[in-house]
């Protein structure tokens, strides 16, 4: 069955239209990633409406390319200007920029490109081979198990907000609350519609996401345009040293370990490619014979950071496709693309639309190969993006997000929702509320409600059903453990006793 689906996926993925979508998505993702302040999540949200024109398969492949390309693109600016293009390349600056200052920018760029490719391909292969058995396992889940799984995922919201877990919890729960506007999913009773018929179907999840992830980043870019009137100085790509086969062999173990960490972090709901490089970097340092060289322009550190963040992308798609639970904020927005085309992520997607799922798997691997080619061949072109006037880019993002939001349903209400959500999201991001938790909350809220109500209907309103089912009991125990771990971590971090892990910045808040 797997072989049959693989052949079908290969056949569809290599159709010219889908290859073009992969190329455009990956190139577009790199452009967005190179520009500091713009994130992969924003790029996916912004281009959601465009997938209407491309159809579901090409659209989903294009968005996967954007995700992979943006995470890689962030490392180019991290190496050449010392500013991470996305939250996922913060760690890349630590060793990439010192190498550039030493006159080894060519080696640094080639290293990040190969490491990103390696991590991306490994993540893609794990996605391809682990997802089908996981989806089969997920078919055994009943409503109480799903309820407990969503609760477990929600406890991970706590870990998204660094040393201020309460902010992640508030905004995540608020996202769930927004998700309850409209008819309830089981009994069809209207809630919070205030008499407006348009609200019976709920607030457009996609319009909120487009606004919440595009407008704040456009405003940040605007701030940067107002502050810096000069064009960013980009270091030249110089140096005689190149990535060789022997260098690759030396880094194989480091790359494998970092990719494995990335994939695992990606699978965990709520933790994305912004977190994994910190952990992989510390691990690479711990295993290194020369830990003192980390942070001074060390190839080991660069490989660890880049292999892991690209591996996380593939990992984050595993829970999304098999369980319908997104592994990162960008994956949460990806749910929007699936639902826009009438596809419900989860185990039934494998049973009903295996063609789409396997084309996406193969397409994702193709995107990573294209990323390697575009990275090695076009790096000088990508650095030119940094010369674009930020004020123009900022306003174009706002225009595109507004027109895109309107075009989905030709609804002016969606347009108002986008602008208002964007303004509110900007204020929240300024106060370090992790917007990724909002996206996860909006996805998880309706799933939680539907399964909670179904469970209670099955058990005739007995809450004991959640501890009587073994799978649900396991997830509840995991939820408690995860909550305790996240709270302890936050406490240690606020006391300054925990150094590993990202410090939330505004860019990361938006991821």
């Amino acid at each position, binding site marked *: 069955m797997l072989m049959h689906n693989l052949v079908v996926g290969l056949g569809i993925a290599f159709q010219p239209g889908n290859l073009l979508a992969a190329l455009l998505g990956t190139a577009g993702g790199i452009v967005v990633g190179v520009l500091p302040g713009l994130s992969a999540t924003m790029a996916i949200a912004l281009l959601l409406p*465009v997938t209407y024109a491309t159809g579901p398969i090409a659209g989903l492949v294009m968005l996967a390319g954007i995700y992979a390309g943006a995470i890689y693109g962030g490392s180019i600016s991290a190496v050449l200007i010392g500013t991470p293009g996305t939250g996922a390349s913060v760690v890349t600056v630590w060793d990439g920029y010192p190498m550039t200052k030493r006159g080894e920018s060519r080696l640094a760029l080639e290293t990040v490109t190969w490491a990103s490719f390696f991590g991306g391909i490994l993540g893609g292969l794990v996605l391809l081979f682990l997802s089908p058995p996981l989806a089969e396992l997920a078919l055994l889940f009943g409503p109480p198990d799903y309820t407990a799984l969503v609760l477990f995922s929600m406890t991970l919201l706590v870990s998204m907000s660094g040393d201020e877990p309460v902010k992640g919890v508030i905004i995540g729960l608020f996202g769930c609350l927004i998700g309850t506007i409209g008819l309830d999913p089981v009994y069809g009773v209207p*809630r919070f519609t205030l008499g407006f018929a348009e609200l019976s179907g709920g607030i457009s999840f996609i319009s909120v996401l487009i606004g919440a992830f595009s407008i704040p980043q456009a405003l940040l870019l605007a701030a940067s*345009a107002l502050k810096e009137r000069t064009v960013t100085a980009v270091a030249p790509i110089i140096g005689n040293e190149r990535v060789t086969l022997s260098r690759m062999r030396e880094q194989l173990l480091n790359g494998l370990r970092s990719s494995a960490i990335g994939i695992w972090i990606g699978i965990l709901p709520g933790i994305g490619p912004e977190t994994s490089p910190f952990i992989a970097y510390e691990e690479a340092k711990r295993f290194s014979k020369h830990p003192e060289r980390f942070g001074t322009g060390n190839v080991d550190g660069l490989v660890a950071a880049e292999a892991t963040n690209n591996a996380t992308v593939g990992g984050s798609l595993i829970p999304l496709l098999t369980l319908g639970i997104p592994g990162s904020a960008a994956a949460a927005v990806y749910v929007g693309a699936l639902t826009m085309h009438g596809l419900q992520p989860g185990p039934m997607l494998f049973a009903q639309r295996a063609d789409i799922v396997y084309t996406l798997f193969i397409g994702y691997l193709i995107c990573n190969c294209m990323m390697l080619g575009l990275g090695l061949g076009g790096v000088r072109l990508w650095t030119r993006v940094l010369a674009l006037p930020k004020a*123009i880019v900022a306003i174009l993002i706002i225009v595109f997000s*507004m027109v895109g939001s*309107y075009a989905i349903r030709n609804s002016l209400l969606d347009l108002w929702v986008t602008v208002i959500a964007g303004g509110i999201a900007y204020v929240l991001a300024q*106060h370090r509320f992790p917007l990724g938790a909002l996206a996860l909350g909006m996805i998880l809220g309706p799933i939680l*409600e539907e399964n909670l109500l179904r469970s209670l209907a099955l058990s005739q309103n007995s809450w004991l059903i959640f501890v009587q089912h073994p799978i649900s009991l396991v997830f509840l125990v995991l939820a408690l453990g995860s909550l305790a771990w996240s709270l302890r971590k936050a406490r240690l971090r606020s006391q300054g006793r925990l150094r590993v892990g990202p410090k939330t*910045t505004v860019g990361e808040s938006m991821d």
Partner: protein
Amino acid sequence: MRRQLGDLFVSLAFIAVSATFLALTFGISDPNATLLPRMLSWAVLAFSCWYLVSTLRARLHRHAPVVEEGVDLVHFLAVMGLALVYIPAMTFGGYLAATAVFIVAAVYLLGYRRFVVLLPLSLCVTLLIFIVFKTFMYASLPSSALDNWITELIYRYVLS
């Protein structure tokens, strides 16, 4: 001081919104339909109160809250105001005119003054988005006589 007020404002806004949601649940007769919304409203309300108290405590201890750097309030309000005006402008004046004017005005507001670049760019981008959304996505963007005339030209000379 302004940043501390901002934190207080955000926590109070969450309290007000969650309290409103909570109050609205009491107007719904079906207990199943209110189960999760009520639980969530209580939870958001409780955590927002905790956030308010911790903000006030930080204020007492004069700990400055960490707020990210971003666009200043005047520019934030100006860009958001323009975006809000853009929606009715698009409805009355059509997509093309409203978008071209919005791009020029907003970019100018952000300090970019090279009109030689800005004017042709705004026209090109406006037209490009128009063509993409109109012809590939079949979106019915708000239209005026100008939009209708250009749509006709596109269909007659470009897509025929």
